[in-house]
């Protein structure tokens, strides 16, 4: 009973967040300082999360995005990942782990002089694709790389 209540609560919260995001988008252009996208971080799949974050769930494969990550990560709690891209006028970079319970790990809004380059360390529950999505000129581009994880890191 309690868990059902939780799900309902989550569902309503997520729906509310989407509504707020949509209305804000209609009223004013998305600024660099946007509210934390709760719906995108709570989404259960990469496509659902993309839709919540950017308003569309598909991205074109691109060879101009490079993901630097280890082939095998011994510790899933700390996986160093660097995303770089040669796509010009990149506005935003997001990093997903396809098989994490909530795939979106982080999203970066880039200023005008900022290069399409972001390095961070993420947690991975198990062996999975790391998916990078770059938004440039209103379009989405994506690339992925598989990282094998020997010890999962989502319990931390």
């Amino acid at each position, binding site marked *: 009973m309690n868990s059902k209540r939780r799900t309902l609560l989550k569902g309503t919260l997520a729906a509310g967040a989407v509504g707020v995001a949509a209305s804000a988008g209609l009223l004013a252009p998305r600024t*660099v*300082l*946007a509210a*934390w*996208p709760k719906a995108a*971080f709570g989404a259960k799949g990469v496509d659902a999360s993309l839709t919540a974050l950017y308003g569309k769930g598909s991205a074109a494969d691109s060879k101009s995005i490079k993901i630097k990550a280890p082939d095998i990560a011994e510790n899933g*709690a*700390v*996986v*160093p990942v*660097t995303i770089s891209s040669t796509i010009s006028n990149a506005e935003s970079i997001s990093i997903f*782990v396809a098989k*994490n319970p*909530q795939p*979106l*790990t*982080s*999203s*970066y*809004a*880039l*200023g005008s*002089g*900022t*290069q399409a*380059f*972001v*390095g*961070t*360390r*993420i*947690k991975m529950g198990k062996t999975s694709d790391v998916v990078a999505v770059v938004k440039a000129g209103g379009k989405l581009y994506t690339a992925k790389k598989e990282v094998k994880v020997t010890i999962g*890191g*989502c*319990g*931390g």
Partner: protein
Amino acid sequence: MDKPIKVKARNKKGLTTIRALMSHPMKVAKKGKPAHFIQTVTCEHNGKAVLTAEWGAAVSANPYLSFKFKGAKSGDSIKVSWVDNKGKNATVTEKIK
């Protein structure tokens, strides 16, 4: 664990590389314990946001962030700040070398 954020900023031929290390537990929600993680990291140069990062709990503990931007020179200051899901925040201003 002395400083909430350690920032290294270096300018080379007009391209500034920022590396920041934050001390934060970045906890995932489990067994009834609430999640505790940094939600937003803002980096500003001369009052202009150069990078805004939005994070979930799937960013590793004591998060590391690095990025590059153009338009700054040595001696400029860069401001890095974070806010977590409990409303705690920290800000550090560092000079670009």
